[in-house]
């Protein structure tokens, strides 16, 4: 396999958990709520998926459990932010610590458990497309689901009634209130759906990508997802591209090493963050204007009266 196709294949494979989490975080942020606890939701999703898959032998039941666990943790975030008026950034970090602690307390029993795992499926026809086929269509089922999820999410955000309400909740909540629509309910849904997607991302990590559960196995990929959302300005297609960019940067090092080249991984690791920062600088004002008003209020809210 050529270096380029190997890195891109690895980029998709390794970027998928980030992709799910970042898509979820986009939904949450569209509704005006940033969730730094995404990493925690991924951990909960990874453990729940692995545990349920191990107990039941059913992979899709595992994925569902991962979604539920990720969603439950983000519900904690939603409650304290939306109903108790706590600061979003601080609460998100707390929720991350909560997820980290709970999963290591209750994950001990599953480190040694054997769970079934998703295997790559070489798709007929699509898989034989030159170049793209082996890169995109020799992946596991959860990767394929994410291919479908991206356009669907785009449609939901930009074309569906719920998407209009979601964006309104994040940007012009007073309009919704004036029309008698409950902003709070929409935001709750956005945060919890976001956490569920992060949970599926965690599930991909445990029952597809690494085939194992270890405590703290997400290793910062939830924070990467938050950065991807900034990079992508909350647009699903750009989120996917950003996730694969991060994934490819991670896949480049082993691909080069296995060909005999030594490399300092950390110069590569910084690239996506620098690119994100540069993109924000170059597109600064425009991006800033695109930021949901509710969210920019969070970022710019006076912290002390």
């Amino acid at each position, binding site marked *: 396999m050529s270096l380029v196709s190997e890195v891109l294949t690895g980029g998709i494979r390794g970027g998928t958990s980030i992709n799910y989490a970042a898509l979820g975080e986009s939904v949450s942020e569209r509704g005006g709520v940033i969730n730094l606890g995404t990493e925690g939701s991924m951990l909960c999703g990874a453990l729940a998926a692995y545990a349920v898959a191990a107990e039941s032998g059913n992979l899709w039941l595992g994925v569902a459990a991962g979604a539920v666990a990720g969603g439950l943790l983000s519900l904690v975030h939603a409650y304290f932010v939306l109903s108790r008026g706590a600061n979003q950034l*601080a609460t998100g970090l*707390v929720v991350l610590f909560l997820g980290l602690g709970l999963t290591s307390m209750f994950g001990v029993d599953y480190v040694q458990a054997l769970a079934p795992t998703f295997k790559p499926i070489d798709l007929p026809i699509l898989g034989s497309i030159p170049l793209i086929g082996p890169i995109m269509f020799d992946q596991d089922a959860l990767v394929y689901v994410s291919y479908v999820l991206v356009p669907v999410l785009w449609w939901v955000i930009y074309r569906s009634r719920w998407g209009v309400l979601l964006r309104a909740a994040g940007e012009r909540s007073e309009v919704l209130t004036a029309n008698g629509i409950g902003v709070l309910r929409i935001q709750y849904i956005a945060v919890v759906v976001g956490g569920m997607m992060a949970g599926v991302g965690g599930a991909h990590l445990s029952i597809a990508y690494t085939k194992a559960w270890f405590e703290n196995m997400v290793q910062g990929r939830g924070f990467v997802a938050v950065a991807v959302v900034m990079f992508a300005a909350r647009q699903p297609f750009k989120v996917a591209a950003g996730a694969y960019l991060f994934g490819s940067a991670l896949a480049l090092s082993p691909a080069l090493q296995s060909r005999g080249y030594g490399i300092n991984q*950390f110069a590569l690791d910084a690239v996506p963050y620098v690119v994100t920062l540069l993109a924000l600088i170059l597109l600064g*004002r425009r991006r800033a204007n695109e930021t949901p008003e509710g969210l920019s209020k969070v970022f710019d809210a006076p*912290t002390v009266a």
Partner: protein
Amino acid sequence: MTVVTQDGSFDRVADAGAASPSLAERLDRLTGVARVLAAFLAALVLFGLVMMLKGVNPLTAYVDMVSSTFSSWDSVGDILVRSTPIMLAGLAVTVPARAGLINVGGEGQLIIGAVTAYGMSMMVDGRLAGGLTLVLMVIAAALGGAVWSGLAAVLKQVVGISESVTTLLMNYIALDLMYFLIYDRWKDTAGSGQPTTEALPISERLPLVGLGRLHGGIFLAIGATVLISIVFAVTTWGFRLKVVGGNTEAARRSGLKVGLLLLSAMAVGGALAGIGGLTQLAGAEFKLRPGFVAGYGYIGFLASWLGRHRPVYVVLSAALLSTIVVGGDSLQIDSGLPAASVNVLMALLLLMVFGFGRKKVTA
């Protein structure tokens, strides 16, 4: 909308600092304290239930935790060693917060401070007296942290990107920068292959103060707290930051140099975190290594919120959170719970205080 307007309320008490507080304000403060204590208690009860799920007797666990965490003066020293960089990281959030800025970048600024301090030590390369080098390292750490955080303030002013986004992103860049250096140019080649730098010479380390392993960095943290409190209370700069933080537009119209004030607040914050990184480097670790100050910046961020951005409370909060983390050692050694369990206790405590520690604010 409730999401964003919650932050304006809690400094009412502090506002009353100049005039003597009215009876109503005193009562309000009292119920505030009572509420916070109730929130603490609720967190302890909740975590007790979680422990019971794991088959651990919560009462025994708590007793063990307290008795072993405070078993000797030296163990108090260990708590303060752990607290020192977190206190400074907390203040690094507090100063910008006064001007309405959210600095999520304490983590990166701690690292950059340690990296620039170590770089200074390498540059001096033993040609100056150790104490002098140490002073230069403190300055380098402060400048490094200030530049790193100041960039976020500049980008906010010039390009309009939120400082909370840029500071968060720059945390990763700082971490990768440190990793790059310790795996590459700065790696101790005479070492055992681990990615660490050489240890600082003894003369360039913060001296011990006679309480176990506690080092002089604690005086930097306490000194900074006192200084910031005074600056907030009596200087025009401190006052102006508050004006900007209260209403930027009004501040601008009244002729304040808002850009400069925001930049200086952010830079001072970064400098504090940078010094925090130095204290860990020159006081406890002596080397840059993987995992250096990992998470300390985020815990400092939470300490600043827990202390409601008031310097003395922030530093006490940092000490409290550090004590809990240190108490986590007992949870696993005495009670057999996984090491990370203590995160649950810390998270529950913070959630209870953030959510119920004061009356819910509605817009």
